[in-house]
């Protein structure tokens, strides 16, 4: 019996314990609101008592009562109060429904203790909840009473939606009771009430919410609402016209602080979008596409690093200018991708400060230089004549004191790293990349005392400002109808990416990369593979085309397909010089690469990744230990680097950015040897001739000369007057190497004879094969430099189609000189190649060069207007469609098209034509003046003739005036004549410089011919009687 009792006793304890655990579970469940928790407890607690089925529990807390409906039938046996810090907050009552029991029972002592424990737990929970909430509410009340009201309003709305009628009593007599639609904060209404009363009510609502929502949920909601409210604060700031950059920075800061821990997936609320759009407009760009892009991809706090580094006065709008904006957007796009993509990780942006574009206005005002605003309307001659004094004026001026103050801060942050001061004008990097290079970028060693550094930096900024008045830049704007658009000059102050090597500072490598590869040196090269030009040292040498130097070129998508195959070609087409900052002299320098490597190669980290060793016509990679900069003949190949992931990283950057920007882009990059840095990003300038040409669809078959559908790039060439055609069959039938070589010579002669860019060259297979002249016309680049297009014809020979060279031998020269390249496959199906045109058009070769008449079957020169009633040839090439067509255009159609076109074409082309007309006209006038003032008797001149581009009306800003002088004087007369002409030549060149900025020593290209020359038809003498582009007599001596 005793045993039975003790078992019973133990069972009761077990039940009580179990009950206690369950109570704890409920009270600790953060998901449950107060009501749900209490309702659960009412169910759970009876299980802890001797007669669970008859046991009923009622919990009263904060005026709410929770119990089963039949509690009233129970006889209450015990009531335990719920105390919160000694105040009675409620009670727990327990009783049995005796009708459901065999016999009435009392509570056991342990059961009463259980009740007390439960009550204690509930007290604790209540205490905790109330404390948290009160704390929060008190704090809110103190800091921002408006915020409290806003939140309680939100809570009311929330409870109405979620809980419905049950929550209604909470709001009785409330401030928000009558508002039916809950929109945004309605601040004036709130303020109309008694603030204290509102606060009390607000607290009531929020506390009341505890009944329905778990504490965590309440706190979360409140946090969200606070954040939202912060946005409104930010909106208020951003929206206000007179907010300074500092105000906005402050607001963004507060905002990002407030939302720091927030789940990022929830963050694209309408106000946020609006804000990003507004900030994008204000600081970065007005380009609709880019703004969309930022709204989709960026977050508000992304703007922080930029806002922190804008230098602008109180009233500055803070616009960064084109270059700054492009870099910022690109860097943020990459940053958002990097988490998912290892190739994009660790791509850095150099530390950059921005002087807002509108600071130029302050600067001008501060120095009383407002006169410069209208400077741009001066004539080109005046611009050039006065530019030096403008530069001097600006360099003598002062930056406003607050700017100087900021520059001190800037220099502190850069801690003596070399700097580059770059222009970032509003127009730059937007309309077309060609604008780049018109404004200045200056490198600073940033060494010396603080004051010295500041002076150097200030000086550089002033120089960048001055470059806005550079006549070239103004002319460029004039030509593109951008002169009346206000231009402002932002300035980027950027850390130079690099490392110190000996006394020099330079990047390990740097370059440019294009997402769209228009240089295809093999049929396997795809446009999507992209293109990169890379050098050791500063990227300036990769950006610019230099006459005597070559960057390393590769396709980031296809780095394995090399342009240069033989070791000697690799050696030849490699960088010869290196750009760097000399820290001792504090200047930007160009040093022969060989000298640099000899001097500093040992100190250059990982040099063996960038250079190979060229020895005995063999190119070899050496290990860091074997490489000897003093003894090895080194050639920059980047072989080891390109075998790593650098090409893939560049490709990935290009892909991501061009995808996001929705158009091809180009970037500048540099590396300090450790990480890759993005320096610039802008839309890629489309094709050489300005983008894909439309392919006319309704051409008559009789007008089409040829079409092409493979490996087509973009070009539009109109008004082609001559075609030089080398016939493949006749060429291959030539008997000796000498004959084959003569063809190359004739092409070279025609190149200098025919009007520049008014003819195209067509011929078999591989032009310019070095060393293997049997297999293609032997020419060098200088033999074809004047052509508008080089067209390699791959005619089927027996059963195979010969491969074309893709211009490999000089393709770089072709592209950068704007010469279009096109391979033709005449035997391909669906291709037009009008044999009759090439066979039956009259051949001018025997008339032009009688001495080469024997080659007339091989080299054919067609004068299109003369042979086709004044019509000209047009070549339209469209890379997107992979189509090209060359067709004859009637004079009628040409004129009509000329009238119709300006509407479709960008306006600047029209202007450029007009400008080109000016080049021609004044040259022609001057030629006439020379003829008029020439003492023909005294100097022994029988006639003076004009030919070339001035004669044909095609002269550009760099054109010479080509004159033929028919002379019969003695040596002394010739000497005097030459001197007289030389004077003209030099002064005309100077005038041309003032007008256009095109520098040349002399402008006259004078050819003296004698009676004997004319009789023999020598050299230029034949121009006088030529049927092609004949020279015009300006003045003849009276007989």
């Amino acid at each position, binding site marked *: 019996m005793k045993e039975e009792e003790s078992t019973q006793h133990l069972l009761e304890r077990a039940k009580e314990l179990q009950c206690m655990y369950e109570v704890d579970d409920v009270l600790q469940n953060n998901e449950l609101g107060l009501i749900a928790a209490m309702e659960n407890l009412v169910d759970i607690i009876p299980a802890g008592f001797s007669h669970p089925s008859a046991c009923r529990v009622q919990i009263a807390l904060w005026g709410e009562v929770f119990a089963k409906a039949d509690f009233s039938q129970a006889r209450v046996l015990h009531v335990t109060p719920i105390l919160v810090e000694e105040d009675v907050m409620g009670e727990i009552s327990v009783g049995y429904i005796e009708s459901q029991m065999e016999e009435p029972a009392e509570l056991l002592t342990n059961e009463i203790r259980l009740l007390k424990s439960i009550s204690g737990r509930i007290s604790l929970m209540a205490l905790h909840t109330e404390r948290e909430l009160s704390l929060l509410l008190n704090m809110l009340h103190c800091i921002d009473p408006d915020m409290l009201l806003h939140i309680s309003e939100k809570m009311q709305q929330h409870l109405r939606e979620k809980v419905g009628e049950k929550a209604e009593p909470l709001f009785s007599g409330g401030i928000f009771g009558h508002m039916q639609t809950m929109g945004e904060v309605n601040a004036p209404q709130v303020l109309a009430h008694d603030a204290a009363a509102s606060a009390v009510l607000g607290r009531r609502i929020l506390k009341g919410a505890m009944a329905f929502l778990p504490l965590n949920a309440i706190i979360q909601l409140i946090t969200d609402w606070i954040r939202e409210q912060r946005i409104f604060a930010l909106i208020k700031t951003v929206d206000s016209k007179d907010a300074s950059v500092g105000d906005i920075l402050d607001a963004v800061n507060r905002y990002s602080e407030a939302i720091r821990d927030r789940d990022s997936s929830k963050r694209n609320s309408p106000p946020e979008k609006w804000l990003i759009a507004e900030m994008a407009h204000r600081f970065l760009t007005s380009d609709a596409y880019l703004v969309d892009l930022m709204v989709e991809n960026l977050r508000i706090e992304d703007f922080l690093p930029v806002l922190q580094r804008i230098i602008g006065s109180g009233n500055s709008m803070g616009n960064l200018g084109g270059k700054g904006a492009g870099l910022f957007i690109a860097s943020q796009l990459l940053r958002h991708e990097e988490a998912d993509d290892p190739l994009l990780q660790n791509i850095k942006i150099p530390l950059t400060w921005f002087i807002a574009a509108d600071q130029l206005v302050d600067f001008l005002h501060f120095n009383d230089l407002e006169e410069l605003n209208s400077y741009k309307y001066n004539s080109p001659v005046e611009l050039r004549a006065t530019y030096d004094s403008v530069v001097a004026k600006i360099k003598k001026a002062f930056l406003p004191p607050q700017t100087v103050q900021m520059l001190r801060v800037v220099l502190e942050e850069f801690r003596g790293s070399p700097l580059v001061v770059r222009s970032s004008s509003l127009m730059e990097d937007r309309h077309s990349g060609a604008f780049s290079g018109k404004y200045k970028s200056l490198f600073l060693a940033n060494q010396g005392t603080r004051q010295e550094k500041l002076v150097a930096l200030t000086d550089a900024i002033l120089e960048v400002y001055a470059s806005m008045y550079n006549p070239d830049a103004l002319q460029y704007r004039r030509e593109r109808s951008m002169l009346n658009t206000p231009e402002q000059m932002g300035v980027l102050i950027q850390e130079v990416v690099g490392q110190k090597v000996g006394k020099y500072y330079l990047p390990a490598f740097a370059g440019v990369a294009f997402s769209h590869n228009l240089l295809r*040196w*093999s*049929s*396997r090269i795809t446009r999507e593979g992209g293109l990169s030009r890379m050098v050791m040292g500063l990227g300036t040498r990769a950006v610019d085309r230099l*006459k*005597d130097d070559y960057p390393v070129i590769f396709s980031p998508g296809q780095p*394995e*397909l*090399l*342009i240069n*195959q*033989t*070791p*000697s070609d690799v*050696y*030849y087409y490699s960088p*010869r010089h290196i750009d760097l900052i000399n820290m001792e002299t504090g200047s930007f320098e160009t040093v022969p690469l060989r000298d640099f490597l000899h001097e500093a190669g040992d100190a250059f980290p990982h040099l063996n990744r960038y250079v190979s060793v060229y*020895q*005995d*016509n*063999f*190119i*070899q990679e050496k290990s860091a230990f074997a490489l000897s900069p003093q003894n090895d003949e080194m050639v920059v190949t980047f072989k080891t680097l390109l075998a790593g992931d650098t090409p893939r990283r560049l490709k990935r950057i290009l892909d991501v950015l061009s995808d996001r920007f929705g158009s091809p882009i180009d970037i500048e990059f540099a590396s300090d040897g450790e990480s890759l840095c993005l320096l610039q990003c802008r839309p890629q300038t489309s094709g050489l001739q300005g983008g894909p040409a439309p392919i006319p669809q309704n051409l008559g078959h009789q007008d089409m000369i040829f079409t092409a559908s493979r490996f087509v790039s973009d070009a539009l060439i109109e008004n082609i007057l001559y075609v030089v055609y080398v016939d493949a069959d006749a060429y*291959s*039938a*030539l*008997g*000796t*190497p*000498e*004959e*084959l*070589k003569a063809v190359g010579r004739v092409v070279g002669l025609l190149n200098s004879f025919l009007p520049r860019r008014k003819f195209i060259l067509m011929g078999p*297979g*591989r032009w310019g094969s070095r*060393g*293997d002249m*049997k*297999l293609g016309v032997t020419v*060098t680049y*200088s033999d074809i430099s004047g052509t508008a297009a080089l067209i390699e014809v791959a005619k089927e*020979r*027996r059963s195979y189609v*010969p*491969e074309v*060279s*893709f211009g*490999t031998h000089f393709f770089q020269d072709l592209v950068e000189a704007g010469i279009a390249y096109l391979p033709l496959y005449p035997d391909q199906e669906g291709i037009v190649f009008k044999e009759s045109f090439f066979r039956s058009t009259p051949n001018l070769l025997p008339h032009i060069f009688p001495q080469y008449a024997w080659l007339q079957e091989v080299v054919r020169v067609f004068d299109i207007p003369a042979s086709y009633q004044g019509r000209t040839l047009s070549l339209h090439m469209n890379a997107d469609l992979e189509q090209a067509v060359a067709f004859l255009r009637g004079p009628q159609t040409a004129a009509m098209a000329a009238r119709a076109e300006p509407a479709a074409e960008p306006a600047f082309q029209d202007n450029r034509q007009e400008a080109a007309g000016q080049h021609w006209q004044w040259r022609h006038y001057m030629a006439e003046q020379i003829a008029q003032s020439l003492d023909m008797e005294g100097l022994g001149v029988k006639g003076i003739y004009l030919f070339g581009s001035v004669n044909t009306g095609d002269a550009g800003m760099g054109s010479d005036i080509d004159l033929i002088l028919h002379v019969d004087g003695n040596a002394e007369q010739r000497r005097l004549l030459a001197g007289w002409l030389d004077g003209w030549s030099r002064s005309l060149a100077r005038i041309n410089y003032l007008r256009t900025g095109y520098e040349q020593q002399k402008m006259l290209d004078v050819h003296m011919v004698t009676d004997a020359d004319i009789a023999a038809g020598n050299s230029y003498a034949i121009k006088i009687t030529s049927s092609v582009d004949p020279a015009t007599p300006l003045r003849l001596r009276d007989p």
Partner: protein
Amino acid sequence: MTTAGYNPYESAQLQFDKVAQTLELDSGMRALLRQPMKEFHFTIPVKMDDGSTKVFNAFRIRHNDARGPAKGGIRFHPQETVDTVRALSMWMTWKCAVVDVPLGGGKGGVICDPHNLSQAEQERLCRGYVRQLYTQLGPNQDVPAPDVMTNAQHMLWMLDEYEVITGGHFPGMITGKPVGMGGSLGRTEATGFGLVYVLNGYLRCIDKPIESTTVSFQGFGNVAEYAARMYTQMGGKVIAISCWNQADAKSYTFRKKDGCDITELVAIKDAFGSIDVAKAKALGYEILPGEEWLAQDVDILIPAALENQITPAVFPRISKQVKIICEAANGPTTPDCDPLIQERGIALLPDFLCNAGGVTCSYFEQVQCNLNYFWSMEEVLEKLEYKMTQAFRGIYDLAQAKNLYMRDAAYVIAVDRVVSAVKMRGWA
């Protein structure tokens, strides 16, 4: 260029026919020597980087190996034709014979454009070439070398494939390898030095000390540079050097009447032999138009740049003082100029002999590989001098004895050496 027009094979046969006439060869011998003895035409399937397979057409042609293993380059060219390879293989037979190295003539080619191939694909192509042909290659059979668009790297891939297949080390299977990987020292210098050894051989024959002579060079590439170095080292005086200027797209002649300092000129020339005009001026050189190299009052002209430089048109401009033309380039003198040269009594040292230093050094590379013992630079040059001088003596003696123009004598001696080997073997 396949049927009509210039066909290098036909012109090589024509040239042989003339010598055969002089040597009064019988028809069997002519038939044997005017065409290659063995031709291999084969395909090489290459797995491309993208997983596809591309098939390349290739050749190896052995013109004649009566005197020893065939020797000749492998060319990669998109418009390679079998006739070009045939002609070149015949040339190799004569070239090896003229310097009397115990090698025959061969040539190979693959129709391909290396611009369209990645390095990995080129490697597979090279290995494929050897896999298809390895039974016919080897230090004792046929020894390839670099040629148009192939270089030392291609040779190493081929060698490695050959050694993997045959399971041994046979560095003498191929030449043109880098020093340290079976290459020979002195290859860079060989052609230029060889030329001067020939010239010096002739000067000794006519009893004129080299120290008393003067030279004008056309071109300042690798061959001219080393020739000029050796020539001045031996005591001769270089009066003028003309060379192409890349930037100005024309050539200049650099003249110093009391003798050019080759080392200082080398220091101011770039990778492709352009001498810096401004720096040369500063060093006291006269800058003359490019074609003036030919009109200098010197004893010796060395055209070392392009083909067809000395033509009947410019011949009268050659100074009366010139007694020797030493052909360093390939075919610098047009055939119609030969009678004029003979008429003036100028000694012509033919290109065929003068630029044989290269092939001689390739032979040395092969010998060293077969011995697996590599000579010092001095040893290489000493042997080169001996070989070139010997070769010259042979030609000179024949020319004197039979009153032949040295160009003809060189061909005759080369063909005759092959003929006698063929005869001794009882082939014809």
